[in-house]
């Protein structure tokens, strides 16, 4: 019996379980405790009356959001930006890791790694400042375009460019950092498999498709599931730093909307209703992707 097993285990490893307590407490206090605050999504929250003192309003805030003018747009933008991030951002570090793996020159490999993961450590505010300065009508990017005879455009004022700017700069910033985990997974592959493949006459390409990629597949799948689970959480910081009314159309995602309405316009209840809705979708996505992965791949989070 599994439960019986647990009790026996506790008796056996008392000290280990005692060491687990702080971790559990951390989650209870900082992650599950605040969850009761989600109730304000169903209340007409006034800070001075407190969470319990405020009036219940049921699903009114959800209704306002669902029927509001920005419901579909924020959902669409959130999904599209996440999707682009997933399609372009997720494979990028894998590709870079595979390429680096083929490089035999250690010095070159290390240089490339250092250069590519450096942007990860620059603060987002600075990154966005750089992006702005580079893409204004007399910025570097436009100078290059004008040099080749193209027309100057202020990229951050063009709704049609927002997602490309957002996703491509995201890839640039995180590609190097992302490779680290895959490179680690690569070192875990048994060298004998390569030897065996070589004996069977596999070239470098065949080695990669038949040994390397399957070798890091479990890592890829796990990270993919986690990424899908976070899909609706497009970070609002970068959006807010880069968008403006001219690009709301393609840039305004659920989290930036929540920020505007909630913190700026003081509508805590409404914004937590939207946030709650967002989390529910995330939860569903996570469950689904895990289920799919277990079904087709035998790899899953749980």
């Amino acid at each position, binding site marked *: 019996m599994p439960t019986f097993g647990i009790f026996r285990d506790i008796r056996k490893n008392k000290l280990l379980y005692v060491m687990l307590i702080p971790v559990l407490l951390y989650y209870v206090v900082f992650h599950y405790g605040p969850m009761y605050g989600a109730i304000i999504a169903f209340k007409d929250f006034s800070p001075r009356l407190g969470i319990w003192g405020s009036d219940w309003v049921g699903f009114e805030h959800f209704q306002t959001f669902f029927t509001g003018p920005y419901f579909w747009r924020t959902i669409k933008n959130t999904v599209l930006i996440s999707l682009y991030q997933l399609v372009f951002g997720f494979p990028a570090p894998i590709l870079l890791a595979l390429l680096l793996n083929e490089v035999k020159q250690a010095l070159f490999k290390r240089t490339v790694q250092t250069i590519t993961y450096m942007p990860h450590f620059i603060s987002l505010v600075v990154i966005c400042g750089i992006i702005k300065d580079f893409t204004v009508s*007399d910025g570097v990017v436009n100078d290059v375009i004008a040099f080749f005879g193209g027309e100057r455009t*202020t990229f951050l004022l063009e709704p049609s460019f927002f997602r490309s700017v957002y996703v491509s700069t995201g890839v640039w910033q995180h590609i190097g950092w992302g490779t680290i985990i895959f490179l680690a997974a690569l070192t875990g592959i048994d060298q004998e498999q390569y030897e065996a493949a070589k004996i069977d006459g596999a070239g470098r390409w065949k080695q990669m498709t038949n040994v390397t990629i399957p070798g890091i597949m479990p890592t890829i799948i796990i990270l993919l599931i986690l990424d899908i689970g976070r899909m609706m959480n497009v970070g609002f910081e970068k959006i807010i730093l880069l968008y403006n*009314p001219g690009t709301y159309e393609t840039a305004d995602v659920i989290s930036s909307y929540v920020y505007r309405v909630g913190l700026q*316009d003081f509508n805590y209840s409404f914004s937590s209703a939207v946030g709650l809705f967002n989390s529910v979708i995330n939860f569903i996505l996570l469950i689904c992707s895990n289920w799919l992965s277990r079904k087709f791949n035998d790899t899953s989070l749980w």
Partner: protein
Amino acid sequence: MGKYVNKKSFSMALSFVVASSVIVGCSTQETGKSSASPKASGAPTAAGAVYPISTQESLTSWEGIDTNLASFVPNLAESPFGQQLEKETGVKVKYTHPADGQSKEQFNLLIASNKLPDVIEYNWGGGGAMAYPGGPEKAIADKVILPLNALIDKQAPNLKKLLQQDKELDKMIKTDSGNYYAFPMIRPDNGLVFRGPMIRKDWLDELNLQVPQTIDEWYTVLKAFKEKKGASAPFTALYSNELNIQDAFIGAFKTANRFYIDDQGKVKYGPIDPQFKDALTLLRKWYAEGLLDKDFALNTDSKALDNKLMSDSAGATVGLLSGGMGRWMDTGKKKNPKFQLVAAPYPTLKKGERAFIGQRDFKYNPAASKAVSGDSKNAELAVKWLDYAYSEKGSLLFNFGIEGDSYKMVNNVPTFTEKITKNEKFNLQQMVSQYTKPNGPFLGDSRKSFNTFKEQDEAIKIWGETDAVKHVLPLFITPTVEESKELAKLNTAIGSYKEEMFVKFVMGKEPIEKFDEYVSRIKEMGIDKVVKINQDALDRYNKR
């Protein structure tokens, strides 16, 4: 579990305190009324505090710190002004300052934290995005701040006297139901107009052009700036949710980029006026021809604007009197001695017309006014401390600083000393910020001037020549608690949509033919309700 019970009993105790204070508040309202009757007003009021007040208590205050001062000391208490104020009033105050540019977010968090300081300097009654949502009546109902009637009556003789003398001011700083809610920053009469269009005079002279007065003349001038001076953004302005060009050019079409009062005294929402389409068409044309800054929507901080003006990419803008014009002249002249900015009148369509609207503020500046928080255990002391700023001595300190140090009396006129005006390292504003409180609840002195150039003195006159008094919607109209709930729901969506469409129309991303569609969309979003609420509130305000 124990914690929960504690919290509950604590909140019960708190609600009892709050409830009793409401009762006190109500009863005092009556006293307030009776004192307004002729018989009572003749009677001597309470003597008020004797300064310095001898007290062991100290106060806490949440207020913005002047950006100039912040570069000298991190806290107001450490500035010469703060120390002098403590000495003169005898009250020790612990100040907390929000980070620059984040006062709104930090204020909202402060309110949510439920631990309020004794006094809070914020926009309590000015409406708009930077104000307490729902207005002062809601703030009182939420127990965030106290109604001040009784306290002013008993502890604040200086302010009380001012309110009795100035009925207009009195009207501004109370709610419809007669509650006073804040200690106001009172602007002197010559401090009401401080923003408007300005233009490079040295360029005009060079091109043999006059300061433009009509929209057509502006077009000629901007075109010349672009073609003959090579300006990449002939007109630029700061952009933060509202494009600052609204004051300059939209008014020419007899509308505004916001709520305004029309000639019949009716509240109107400018952005859906038919004339607004003409204004948009103009801005759109200018944008397309490169007369308007191509990147205008990205100019969210003054840095971008400074760069454009100082690098000769722009020749005209809309800006502040000292923080803009004065500062740019200062820096500009260092690079190019000929650099000269002059004020241009708010343009009109026909020559000789008087501008429909322009910038004009009110005596009462709600953004820098202090309220006493609902939690304050030292409300009486706080009020006594605040009232000092309206006394003769206090007013001198707040406006001019420390006598003999930052100012001297010259023929009975307080005049800044050379230490302040001719400092080698720092400019006037930076020096003044250490010795006075540039913004805050006190009585402004018309003898104080930050102007360092004659162009600034002229600017005040030129920008003042508008009908703004008639058309600007008073900031101090107060919707009821119910109304403000409704407003909160409607305003965000409408404002956000309007702003988005405004930028798109100007940039040519949305065909101007869609204007009617845009208007009906805003109507669907409930603009009529918002207009009605504002109208009702205005009517009540007029009846106060």
